[in-house]
Structure formats: structure tokens, C-alpha cells
């Protein structure tokens, strides 16, 4: 065995975005020695990219808002496939989590009374998103980062060591979770990117907070980090994922120039008044209001425009439908030949708001277009199209504790599944990170407490196997460059398991995935172990392949269209399929799926909905008694 750096912690958090940092804060405040392990530098996680805001029913702008309304919006957005318990906890606890950020030093935009301002967003009935211009994610990550630093300062005063209770291991990648013979978590194994040296964390509890899987798709708003590491680590450790067929294609990504294709254009553009038009100048979203939302959205541009100033007497414009609806509509317009020169549609604020207001409310968007595309969004419309943005599916967890199906394993944030059902509402991600990050940190702390002195042990054999696996790409000769396989994988997923799916295409994708698997086994890496991106990609690719297989298998299985899963050959949403989750587990070098029934919604939550609305989603037998 080569030299190995060993550490021992109570809790290891993998990922340093919103969920990971909030989990670490919680575990540390329960006295647990906590390690934060992240692939990038501290403070660079993908949360930084979130723009629009954090959804929390504080009722600062419209006092009619409350957790019940937020819960209903979330369930509707997810087409009732959500874990209702997670949606309930989320709606109830989000305001506390946002207020808590202020105690850490966050500075949100304010209302005239000095409270936290809240903005409109797709699928949210009232203005609900706490925000800082269009850089809310940056505020969230920096605030949590600075809170961690303040905890380290407290520890320094108490122990003389900043890192006595919480330490960040930056630019460190975990390649394998280690479990003992009973299947419980004993530790995590990985390498430091800087040196290529290996590291072992002995720890009875691991919190996965690794984010999403977008790097398996060609057009994506996600960074290189989003390779499905947590999903794959959990499955290889004996855990399961669910809802993996549901991928959110954000309706508005940049489409031009090619090098920025996929970069996000925040939904706030529409929340603040921006409209979508096609090449004929039509506000086409009025033609795409689905039946389930017919009575909730304006039917004329005039009514939609009035809503911005008089929301009590008008319905909201259909540009603010949930993201899946808007993405599909844009896709259809482009396919019908009504797209822009670069294959998108127009998103216009220039004719809707004064230039000064645009620069003030959407500063990042203004700069992004100005500097990357030479487009002045205060003068001309943007060109936008769908981009792979978020995976609703993820590690199957207990709603209250974030506990995965492996003792000692927890997950929170995008890597966990259930909360958002088949489609996530904008703004519900940042709140999800905080609510369930905290719960997973607490769950991990309590689990460690319950173990007492007897902790699962790491053996030399586990470590040796993990090392062998990580070094494999250096031992092969004459194989392919990992970049080639990666770009082919991205093309395949984009073209064959993308926004619109058919049986034939998904089957073709599965065939190609088999081919990639064989090729990845022989991938060859040039250079040494110190900061070698080729090696890093070769290891990440295995995770991307496993996760892509889950997406494809689940997409083939689900014979209906719902949220982030649209089957051209099964275009209708089916109440029978609503009762089913598709669960994936690792099987040999691939993935296997099973159908699993959803837990029926608690009665008091069911009572929050009109029966007429429930009839659109549920089977006759599921409706409340006496409602037929």
C-alpha cells in the first residue's frame, strides 16, 4: 500500500454547498467532530450559481402566504409524486432557516418596512423568494462559509486550534464509502487533488451533500463537479436512489455563443416581468397552459400584465408556470420552426422594464449577456432554450432524519430524492438545502450518539481494494482518453434521454451505455497523480455512467409523462403511475430497478386541497371518503 493519510471524525460531510455546510454546522453544534470534504475550494460549490432566491412562506410581501400554501404549491409543482412528509417539513421550516441566515450575517434585499423582501417565481402562488438581486446562491454559500469560520474562531478560543471541531478538506474527492460486515458505514476513502495522495476518513456517519448529475448531459447549467458522485457512492454502499427519471430542464439557458450554451438565465427575469415570444412575435405560453393549471393562470396578455400590480384580482401570466411546462413549450416552438436564429426563443425584459431597473434587479444577467454574448438585455431580447439543470431523483432517505437505507449514511440537498417529486419549483432548492441539511446533520449526530463506544471498523482489506480501484486508470495502457468518452456520453444522454423521450431512443441509450462501460474499464491516463484532471475525470466517469444508467432504466420503465419525464409515446399523466416510485440499486457493474408504492398522503394534508384538484392527480380509490 502507498502512503495513506488517516483521519478520525464523528461525522464526515461530503460536499460543501448549502446542504453540506448546513449539515456540518448542525453536527458541530451537537458537539460532533466534523470534517467537510469537497472537490473544489471552500466556497466554490454549485450553490453559488443559484440566482433567484430561497422560497420560504414568511408572508413579508403578501401576508396571505403560509406553510400550507407553500406545501400545496410544492406538491402541485411535483405533480403529487413528492414525498409529502418532506414537502411538509420543508414548507414549515423554511422561514426559520432563512431567518437563521440573518443571524449568521446574510444581507437580503429588504421591503420598505425593513423586512426580507420576497419575489414572485414560477409555481409559487405568492411572492415568496427571499433574494439578493440575482446572486442569492452566492449570499447563501458565503454566509454559511463565514458561519463555519466563526465556529472555528469559537473553537480556537476554547482549544487553541481553529480546526479542533470542524475542518475543511478542500480539493479532496471521495471515491468509495467503506462499510463493515453488517453493512454499516465505517469510513470514506479518497484522494487529494493537489497531490494525488490517498486519504482515509474513519467515521461512523457520512452525510452526502454532493449535488447533482448534470455533467452527464451536453447542454447543462452544471459545473464539472456535478458527476453524480453521491448517488453512485450511496448505491455502491448498498443504498438506493429513487425518481431518477425526473430531470429538470430549466427553460431558460443561454443558447449563443456555443461556448456558453446552457448557462443559466434566472427565472427572476420572468418573475420580474420578462415575457417569452417566438420568431413570429407571439407570447406563445398562453397556448401551453395544461388542464391541471387552467384556472390558475391568465388567459390573455392583458390579464397577465395586470397581475404584476394587482395579484388579488388577476391570474398570473403563464410564463410563470412550473419549469417543466415552460421547457416543453419552448422545445415545441423551436421544433415547429418558430425558434430564433440560434435555436431558442426570445426572452424579453427590455420592452417591459426601464433599463435602470433591469440593471438593479438583474445585475448578474446584465453582465453575463454583456460580457459573454455582447447582448445588452436592457435594449434587446435574450435568446434562450432549455438546459439540464437539476435532478429531482436522488438517494432514498427518511424524511425526518435524512437517513439513507444504509446505517450511518445520510443525504441532503440535490443528491437526496423525494422532496420535489417529478418537478422542482424554482427557489425550493436553496430552502431544501437548509431544511434538510440541518436535519441530516442532526440525524448524523444522533446516530453517532446512539452508537456509544462501538463504532464500525475499517479494515486493511477495504482500504487496499479502494486504492486498487482508484489507481486502475494508471495501470492500463493503450486505452482511450477519458475526455472522448465523456463527450460521447453527454451527446447520448442529451439526444436520447433528454427533454422528450421515446422507448426506442432510451433503449438505444442503454445500448450505448454498455459500450461506454467497456471503454471506461480500459481508459488510460497520461501524467502523474498530482493535480491531474484527466485522472479525476476517469474516476468521475464511472459515477456518471452508473447514474446515467439509472436515469435511462427508470425513464424506460415509467410509461407516462409527468414533470421532468416526458414520453412522446406515453404523453398522458396517469394516476396509476403516480402511486409508484422507481427505485434503483447497484447491480454488478450496472443498475437494477424495482417499482415501489408511494406512501399515501396523511389525511390532514390531503384536506388542504380541493377535491376537484385532487381528482386531476389521484385515482378514484385514493380520494378522501365521501368525495366521489
Amino acid at each position, binding site marked *: 500500500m502507498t502512503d495513506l493519510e488517516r483521519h478520525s471524525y464523528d461525522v464526515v460531510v461530503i460536499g460543501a454547498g448549502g446542504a453540506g455546510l448546513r449539515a456540518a454546522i448542525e453536527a458541530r453544534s451537537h458537539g460532533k467532530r466534523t470534517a467537510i470534504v469537497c472537490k473544489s475550494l471552500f466556497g466554490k460549490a454549485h450553490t*453559488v450559481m443559484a440566482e433567484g432566491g430561497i422560497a420560504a412562506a414568511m408572508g413579508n410581501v403578501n401576508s396571505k402566504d403560509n406553510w400550507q400554501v407553500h406545501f400545496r404549491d410544492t406538491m402541485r409543482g411535483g405533480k403529487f409524486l413528492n414525498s409529502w412528509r418532506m414537502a411538509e417539513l420543508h414548507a414549515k421550516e423554511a422561514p426559520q432557516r432563512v431567518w437563521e441566515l440573518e443571524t449568521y450575517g446574510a444581507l437580503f434585499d429588504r421591503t420598505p418596512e425593513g423586512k426580507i423582501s420576497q419575489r414572485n417565481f414560477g409555481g409559487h402562488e405568492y411572492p415568496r423568494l427571499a433574494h439578493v438581486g440575482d446572486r442569492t446562491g452566492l449570499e447563501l454559500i*458565503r454566509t454559511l462559509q*463565514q458561519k463555519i469560520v466563526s465556529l472555528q474562531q469559537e473553537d480556537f478560543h476554547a482549544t487553541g486550534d*481553529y480546526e479542533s471541531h470542524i475542518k475543511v478538506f478542500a480539493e479532496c474527492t471521495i471515491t468509495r464509502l467503506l462499510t463493515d460486515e453488517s453493512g454499516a458505514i465505517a469510513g470514506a476513502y479518497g484522494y487529494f487533488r493537489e497531490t494525488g495522495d490517498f486519504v482515509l476518513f474513519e467515521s461512523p456517519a457520512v452525510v452526502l451533500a454532493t449535488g447533482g448529475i448534470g455533467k452527464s448531459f451536453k447542454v447543462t447549467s452544471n459545473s464539472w463537479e456535478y458527476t453524480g458522485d453521491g448517488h453512485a457512492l450511496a448505491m455502491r454502499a448498498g443504498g438506493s436512489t429513487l425518481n431518477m427519471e425526473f430531470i429538470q430542464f430549466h427553460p431558460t439557458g443561454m443558447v449563443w455563443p456555443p461556448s456558453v450554451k446552457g448557462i443559466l438565465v434566472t427565472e427572476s427575469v420572468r418573475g420580474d416581468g420578462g415575457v417569452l415570444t417566438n420568431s413570429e412575435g407571439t407570447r406563445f405560453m398562453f397556448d401551453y397552459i395544461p388542464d391541471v393549471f387552467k384556472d390558475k393562470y391568465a388567459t390573455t396578455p392583458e390579464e397577465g400584465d395586470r397581475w404584476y400590480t394587482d395579484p388579488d384580482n388577476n391570474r398570473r401570466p403563464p410564463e410563470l408556470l412550473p419549469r417543466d411546462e415552460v421547457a416543453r413549450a419552448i422545445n415545441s416552438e423551436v421544433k415547429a420552426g418558430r425558434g430564433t436564429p440560434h435555436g431558442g426563443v426570445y426572452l424579453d425584459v427590455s420592452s417591459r422594464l426601464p433599463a435602470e431597473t433591469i440593471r438593479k434587479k438583474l445585475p448578474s444577467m446584465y453582465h453575463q449577456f454583456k460580457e459573454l454574448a455582447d447582448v445588452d438585455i436592457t435594449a434587446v431580447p435574450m435568446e434562450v432554450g432549455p438546459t439540464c439543470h437539476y435532478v429531482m431523483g436522488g438517494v432514498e432517505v427518511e424524511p425526518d432524519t435524512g437517513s439513507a437505507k444504509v446505517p450511518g449514511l445520510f443525504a441532503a440537498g440535490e443528491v437526496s430524492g423525494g422532496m420535489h417529486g417529478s418537478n422542482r419549483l424554482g427557489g425550493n432548492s436553496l430552502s431544501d438545502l437548509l431544511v434538510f441539511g440541518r436535519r441530516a446533520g442532526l440525524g448524523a449526530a444522533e446516530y453517532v450518539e446512539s452508537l456509544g463506544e462501538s463504532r464500525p471498523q475499517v479494515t486493511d482489506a477495504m482500504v487496499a481494494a479502494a486504492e486498487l480501484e482508484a489507481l486502475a486508470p494508471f495501470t492500463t495502457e493503450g486505452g482511450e482518453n477519458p475526455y472522448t468518452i465523456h463527450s460521447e456520453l453527454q451527446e447520448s444522454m442529451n439526444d436520447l434521454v433528454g427533454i422528450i423521450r421515446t422507448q426506442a431512443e432510451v433503449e438505444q441509450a442503454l445500448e450505448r451505455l454498455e459500450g461506454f462501460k467497456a471503454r471506461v474499464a480500459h481508459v488510460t491516463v497520461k501524467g502523474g497523480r498530482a*493535480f491531474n484532471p*484527466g485522472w479525476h475525470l476517469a474516476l468521475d466517469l464511472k459515477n456518471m455512467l452508473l447514474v446515467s444508467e439509472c436515469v435511462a432504466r427508470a425513464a424506460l420503465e415509467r410509461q407516462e409523462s409527468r414533470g421532468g419525464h416526458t414520453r412522446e409515446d406515453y404523453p398522458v399523466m396517469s394516476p396509476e403511475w403516480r402511486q409508484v416510485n422507481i427505485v434503483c440499486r447497484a447491480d454488478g457493474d450496472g443498475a437494477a430497478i424495482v417499482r415501489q408504492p408511494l406512501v399515501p398522503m396523511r389525511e390532514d394534508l390531503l384536506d388542504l386541497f380541493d377535491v376537484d384538484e385532487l381528482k386531476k392527480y389521484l385515482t378514484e380509490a385514493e380520494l378522501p371518503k365521501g368525495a366521489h
Partner: protein
Amino acid sequence: MGYKARFKVWRGDKSGGGLEDFSVDVNEGEVVLDIVHRLQATDAPDLAVRWNCKAGKCGSCSAEINGRPRLMCMTRMSTFAEDETITITPMRTFPVIRDLVTDVSYNYEKARMVPAFSPPADLEPGDYRMAQVDVERSQEFRKCIECFLCNDTCHAVRDHEENKTSFSGPRFLMRISELDMHPLDTVDRREVAVQEHGLGYCNITKCCTDVCPEHIKITDNAIIPLKERVADKKYDPIFSIASLFGKTKERARRTPPPGKNA
């Protein structure tokens, strides 16, 4: 449309290195980071570079392009002539790890020395009240993406390794200023700014402001006001007496007192 560009990229590690020549395809609309990625996918798969968002939001891909500190993702190829040779080197102020990746731990150590935000002890979560006009001053500084280009360019450390122990650079003087202007913070950091973070080393040449990709007016809006407040404290006899009694931070003139939740 497409053309071949000539690049010189610094390659090596702490033991040494040098510029390596590449000829690379360039397509319309590309930025320097696209070219670096193309190099990785073709001639140099082990070329070390940091990047994340590729949209100017995370501050990871800092480097020096033709000697100027910049984000690679926000430097468009169209700003160079087609026959120009483009040179990419790692940030000079920080020790090289490999190729374009530097050891920026100096910044994280300095961050840890800034006394944290301290709200009034009796202020409950949910009861924070602040006026937009008051939060905007600190919000400008919170746009910072921590690319550390300001600290890279600041001559007080760029050309003086020995100053690194006593000087934290524009990034963290701005952080102190940000906390100082937070309407609900209760700590006085002026002494710390001078003694531990080397406020006096800054002689307001505004190089930091020039390279900030977020266009934050670091010198004018953060550092100069901080210097002024320190000067006030030093030379204001009434303030010196008041500070003997503990309460050294005036805030009533800036913000109304926090109200209770309705």
C-alpha cells in the same frame, strides 16, 4: 469563423517550469477557458486548472492572461487579434501547485482572522429590520466571488512576500469594511484592521479595483472609508474617551433600532 491561435501556457510545479507553446482551434464566441479545456481534451490531458461555473460567478479560474490578472471564463477570445500570441500564467502572488493552479491558502487563513459578524445578543431570528439603503453598502462588497485577483495584483504582497504575515490584502480589508457597515453588527474592528490586517500598507493605488471582475469599488467604497474611520478614532478625543467605556461603535445615526416582528 474558426482560426488557429498561438498560446503559451505556463506548465510546471513548485520545483520549476516554463512556458509551453500550443497551437489551438478557436471558434466564434469562445473564452480563454474554452481554449484551456480544448487543450486538456487534446494535447495536454493533465494540464492542471481550476474552474467551476464558467460564468463568472464562482471565482475559481483566476490566472494571468498576457500578464493581467483575469478570470479565464470571462476573457473572450474576440478581445485578442487573431495573430496575437496569448500567454497564460498562474497568479504570481501565490505559490504554484501545478500549471495554472496556485496555493491560495493565504486567503483562507486571513479570512479566519477577521472577527465574525456579531448581532445584538437580544435580537431574535425573524426580528431583524434593516433599510434597503443601509444594507446596500455592505451588499456591494458581498458581491465578491473570492477570485482573489485583487490580492494577486496588490503590490504590497505581489512584490513583497515578507508582507504576507502582516497584510491581508484588499479582499479582507473589504470584508472588515463590509462587517463594519453591516447595520446590525456590534463589533469594532478598527484596531484589528490596523494591527492584524495591515490597513496602513494600502496606499490606494486602486489596482485591486481595476482587476475586480465584479466591478466592486474596493478602494473608494471599502478601504478609504475604513481608513477614514480609523483616523477618526485615532484623532477624535471624544471618541477616545467614549471608547474607555466600552461602547465604541456608533450605529444609531445609520439605522433605526430593530423593531419587533409584527
